[in-house]
Each structure stands twice: as structure tokens, then as C-alpha cells.
């Protein structure tokens, strides 16, 4: 059984999503517990895999016993294992958190919501763990289809936002498929390790050049890199709270992971960095994304929309970090994948709690929240400090490594972008904190003039505990970042 764990990580959510409608027919309330059960097993399996990879090195798992390249193979190395843990633990936390919001925002659809939720997690896990290019496309589509459905059931305006996302997302996936097609035509193989061996004699072929271009273009659409990010703000703002808490942190980070795989495992670093100017383009793309995302975020009055633009800026950090192409910058970028996933899920869960209580996610409706919901606001402040980059939260450390990498590469524009974005984040979040904290006096009304302590109208525990857990996680990851770096990320980064 232990030897089969790599496949179990993907199969457990898949099979449990098959049973979910049946359980829903029997008793509707059980679906939530069933989803929690399945995701806990899955999270345990992925943590086990992470420790196995740290102890023993890369795990190779052949599906059906066929040797690659004739069959499909799962390759779990350090980068993979870390991503698996990120995806499964965040899905578990969001599933725990989702009970009340789903009942409030989506009455009558609880059963199928959890079914599609589990399918979405299956898709994400399948993308992260596979070592075969076409298999990745299949699971990318599973994840995308589930995501379209989960987003489209949101508030008014969600279907149109989803339609735009469908068109752009399909273009991205089809460009990826085209890229694989060009690689297949010139090498005859679909397995990542096999293609890596076959490619070096083909480096000056135009087919390969076009293949890289289309692969990266498709992934850029999926990860919402600055000019093609237009689907993201509408889709994630109008989605239901539990959906945006699940998809917003994960989808973009998984596409970033695939980009790192394509650049450094399929095409060796020699090609990506020295022969072609890809990495230079990436640093400028990151620069534009950071500043563009930050400026657009300043203009927003809707809290969730502001967070969406923060996500766009964070993608810019990681793309630019990978583009700087020295070891410290890539380590910082990979650490930032972890940190950003945790920060984003923290902030979106806070947004969901506020939506649950006040039925709105507009910033001007945040009055007096610091008195009414102190624990939620604590989680919000921790997340905000992490995005700004204040120690000991995790955001500080990944930004520090990225800054060091920029200095070593002498790329001053990117360095300025990093520092500017911290300033912009300070302005963004302090504006929200100010409205939540300062303006309570004029709107508190009768509850404050009576003199006793303000009524604390906190979120229900099932939503509050996961949020606080994430906030504590942000601090813990920051404190332990050296351990994470030296045990996991140091092996995940290619030797340059």
C-alpha cells in the first residue's frame, strides 16, 4: 500500500467525488464530512510523500507497470512534493472553512458543490504530480472545467465573468497542447525526462523555438501574467467565497509550477537561460506585472477585487524571480510560491468571513470591524503584513531572497519594482485597516454609547478556526523558513 501512495494521492479525491452524489442522495449533510474525510487522507498521503522524498530522493512511479517512455510515469521530486503538500493542505483547510458559506450562498447545491470541489482538487493534484506532458494536459482540463463550474454559480455577473474565463482558459490550454504537439513531432516522445534527453541535439530547430513560445504563452494565460490577466479580477471577485478561497491561491501557483518544470526540466537551464533570451523577457514581464497589479489594486473599492490585483502582482514576483536566473532568486521564487499560496488563502478566507457576516465585500462597508470581529481582523493584519513584507511573517523572507537575487543579477529595475510594491501594499492595506478601525465611532451608534464593551459578533467557529490556523501558519513558515529552504527548496532548484 505504501508503495502505491503517489497514485493514491490523486485517486482518493477522484473516487470520493464519485461517491459524493450518492451520499448526497442519502443524507445531504454528510457530503461535507465525506469531503473532509477524503481530503484529510489525501493530505496525510502527500505529507508522507514529502518526508519520503526528503529521506530517499526522487520517487518514480510507473502507472500500469509500463516503463517510460512507453507508459505514463509519475515523478515526485522535491519541488513536486512541496507543491503536493501545499495543494492538499490548502484544500483541506478551505473545505473545513466552507461549510457555513456554502449553506448561505449556495442553498440547495451543497451536494454537487462538494462533488465538483473534490474534482477540482483531483485536477490540481494530477497536474502537480505527473511526469508526462499529455497527462498534464488532461488533468489541466479536469481542473479547469471544475473551476468554471465553481465560479459560475457565484453572485450576479458571475456567468459572464466565467464565460470570458472559459474563452481565455481554453486558448491557454490549446496553446499548451500545440506546444506539446510541436515537441512530439520533433522528438516522438511525451515523457518529460525522455524529451529532456532527446532535445539537446535539436536546440537550433525552429520547431523547438515555436514549441517553447507556445507552451509559455499558454501557461502565461493560465497564470494571469500581466497583459493576459484580464479574466482574473472578474472571475475571482464574483465567485462564491469558498471557491475563491480554493482557486485563487492554487490555480496560478500551479501554472507557475508547470512553467518551472517546462523551463528547467524539459528544456534544460542551458537552453532557457543562455541560448534564448527567455529569462530576460521574464524579468521584464515580472516588472510590468508587479507595477501594473499594484497600481490597479490602488484604484479598487471592492475588497476582493483589490486582493485579485494583489495576486496578479505576486505572480509578477515569481515570474521575475525565476527570470533573474541565479540560485538565490530562484530559491526565493519557489519559497514565494509557498508563501503566496498561504497568504492568498488567508486573505480570501477573511474576505469570505466578512462576506458571510456583512453580506458585502466593499471596503466602505468595513466600518467598526475591528471591534466586532477581532480575531478575523487579526488574521487579516497578519496576511497584510506578510504581503507588505514585515518579519517574522513569511512574506518578508521570500522578498528578501528575491531582493538579494536582483542585486546579484544587477537588475535594478526589478529591485525598484519590488521595493515600490511594498510601499503600494502598505498604502492598500492601511487604507482598509483605517476604515475598519478608525471610523467606528460615527457608525457604532447605540452599541457604543452605553459604555460597556462592544458586542463581538464573530464568525462561526468552523470558519474562524481555519482562518486563524492559516494566520499562525504564515508566522510559523516565516520563522522556520531556513529549515524549509535547506531541506526542500535547495534540492528543488536546478544547479546553475
Amino acid at each position, binding site marked *: 500500500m505504501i508503495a502505491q501512495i503517489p497514485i493514491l494521492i490523486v485517486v482518493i479525491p477522484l473516487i470520493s467525488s464519485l461517491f459524493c452524489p450518492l451520499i448526497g442522495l442519502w443524507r445531504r449533510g454528510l457530503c461535507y464530512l465525506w469531503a473532509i474525510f477524503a481530503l484529510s487522507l489525501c493530505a496525510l498521503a502527500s505529507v508522507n510523500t514529502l518526508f519520503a522524498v526528503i529521506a530517499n530522493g526522487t520517487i518514480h512511479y510507473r502507472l500500469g507497470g509500463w516503463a517510460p517512455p512507453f507508459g505514463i510515469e509519475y515523478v515526485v521530486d522535491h519541488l513536486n512534493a512541496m507543491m503536493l503538500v501545499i495543494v492538499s493542505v490548502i484544500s483541506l483547510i478551505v473545505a473545513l472553512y466552507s461549510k457555513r458559506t456554502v449553506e448561505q450562498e449556495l442553498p440547495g447545491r451543497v451536494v454537487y458543490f462538494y462533488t465538483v470541489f473534490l474534482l477540482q482538487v483531483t485536477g490540481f493534484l494530477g497536474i502537480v504530480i505527473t511526469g508526462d506532458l499529455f497527462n498534464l494536459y488532461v488533468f489541466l482540463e479536469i481542473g479547469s472545467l471544475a473551476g468554471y*463550474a465553481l465560479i459560475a454559480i457565484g453572485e450576479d*455577473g458571475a*456567468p459572464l465573468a466565467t*464565460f470570458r474565463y472559459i*474563452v481565455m482558459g*481554453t*486558448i491557454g490550454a490549446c496553446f499548451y497542447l*500545440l506546444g506539446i*504537439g510541436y515537441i*512530439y513531432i520533433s522528438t516522438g516522445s511525451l515523457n518529460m525526462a525522455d524529451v529532456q534527453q532527446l532535445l539537446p541535439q535539436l536546440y537550433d530547430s525552429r520547431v523547438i523555438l515555436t514549441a517553447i513560445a507556445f507552451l509559455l504563452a499558454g501557461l502565461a494565460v493560465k497564470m494571469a501574467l500581466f497583459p493576459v490577466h484580464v479574466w482574473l479580477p472578474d472571475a475571482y471577485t464574483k465567485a462564491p467565497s469558498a471557491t475563491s478561497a480554493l482557486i485563487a491561491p492554487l490555480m496560478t501557483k500551479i501554472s507557475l509550477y508547470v512553467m518551472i518544470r517546462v523551463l528547467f526540466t524539459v528544456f534544460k537551464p542551458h537552453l532557457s537561460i543562455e541560448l534564448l533570451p527567455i529569462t530576460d523577457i521574464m524579468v521584464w514581464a515580472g516588472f510590468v506585472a508587479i507595477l501594473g497589479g499594484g497600481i490597479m489594486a490602488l484604484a479598487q473599492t471592492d475588497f476582493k477585487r483589490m486582493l485579485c490585483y494583489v495576486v496578479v502582482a505576486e505572480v509578477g514576483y515569481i515570474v521575475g524571480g525565476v527570470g533573474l536566473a541565479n540560485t538565490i532568486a530562484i530559491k526565493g521564487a519557489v519559497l514565494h510560491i509557498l508563501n503566496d499560496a498561504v497568504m492568498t488563502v488567508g486573505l480570501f478566507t477573511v474576505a469570505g468571513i466578512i462576506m458571510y457576516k456583512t453580506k458585502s465585500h466593499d471596503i466602505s462597508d468595513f466600518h467598526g470591524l475591528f471591534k466586532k470581529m477581532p480575531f478575523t481582523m487579526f488574521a487579516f493584519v497578519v496576511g497584510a503584513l506578510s504581503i507588505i513584507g514585515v518579519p517574522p511573517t513569511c512574506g518578508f523572507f521570500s522578498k528578501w531572497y528575491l531582493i538579494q537575487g536582483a542585486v546579484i543579477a544587477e537588475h535594478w529595475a526589478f529591485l525598484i519594482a519590488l521595493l515600490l510594491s511594498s510601499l503600494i501594499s502598505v498604502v492598500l492595506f492601511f487604507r482598509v485597516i483605517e476604515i475598519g478601525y478608525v471610523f467606528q465611532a460615527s457608525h457604532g451608534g447605540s452599541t457604543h454609547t452605553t459604555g460597556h464593551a462592544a458586542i463581538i459578533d464573530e464568525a462561526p467557529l468552523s470558519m474562524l478556526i481555519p482562518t486563524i490556523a492559516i494566520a499562525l501558519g504564515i508566522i510559523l513558515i516565516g520563522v522556520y523558513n531556513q529549515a524549509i529552504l535547506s531541506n526542500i527548496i535547495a534540492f528543488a532548484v536546478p544547479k546553475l
Partner: protein
Amino acid sequence: MIEFVVSHYNYWAYVGLMVIGFYAMMAKKNLIKKIIGMNIFQSAIILFYISTSVKRGGVTVPILEHAHGGHGAHHAVDIMQYANPLPHVLMLTAIVVMVATLGVAVAVCILIYKRYNTLEEDEIIMSIKRG
């Protein structure tokens, strides 16, 4: 030169189809036309892959002859006679994915139509702005 064109024209034909589909997705205002464009684009990619599986010189489908009854394992298989099976397999999956995406896209269109009573993108945006 002519030989180059003749040996590569299949690829160019499918690239042409892809560009038509892509243009329809981006430039048309009607949501259903966008979906049709998406379908054309994906079908062109599928045809592109399949065109790489054929071999010149009278190839048949990849079903091995003389194979029934357990005798086939003794006959040597001449790979030059059979078309390449792998792109066919990949494209079977891709066709299924295409149909599934089409289904979900049309379901979302149904939701949009119920709410706004129109399927033209600019009319929908105007009715959102009017509030």
C-alpha cells in the same frame, strides 16, 4: 521549393484553420459565435496532430493483420505498413475534452441568457452598466 511546399502544405492548412477559429473567438461579439470559434480552433489542433501519423507508401490503419486466433505473435510486424497509432490515441482524449468544454460553455451561456435575455456581449455589458 515546390517539393517543400508539397511536403508541408498539410501543416499550413491546419494553421490557417486555427487562425480562423482564433479570429472568431476574439473578434466576434455574439457568445455563441465565440464558442463556435473555440470549437474550430480545437478541431484544427486535433487535425494537425493526426496529420503527423500517416506514412507515405500505402499505409493502412494500425490494426495488425493475421492477428486473430493467437497466431499473430509469430508474424513479424512491418511497421512501415501501419500508421502511427500514438497521435490517434492522444486525439481521442482531446476530442472528448473538446466536447466537454463545449458542454460547459453552452451551460454557462444558458445561465447568461436566463439573466440578461440576450447573447450579444455589448448588450450584456450595457445592461450591467445600467444596473
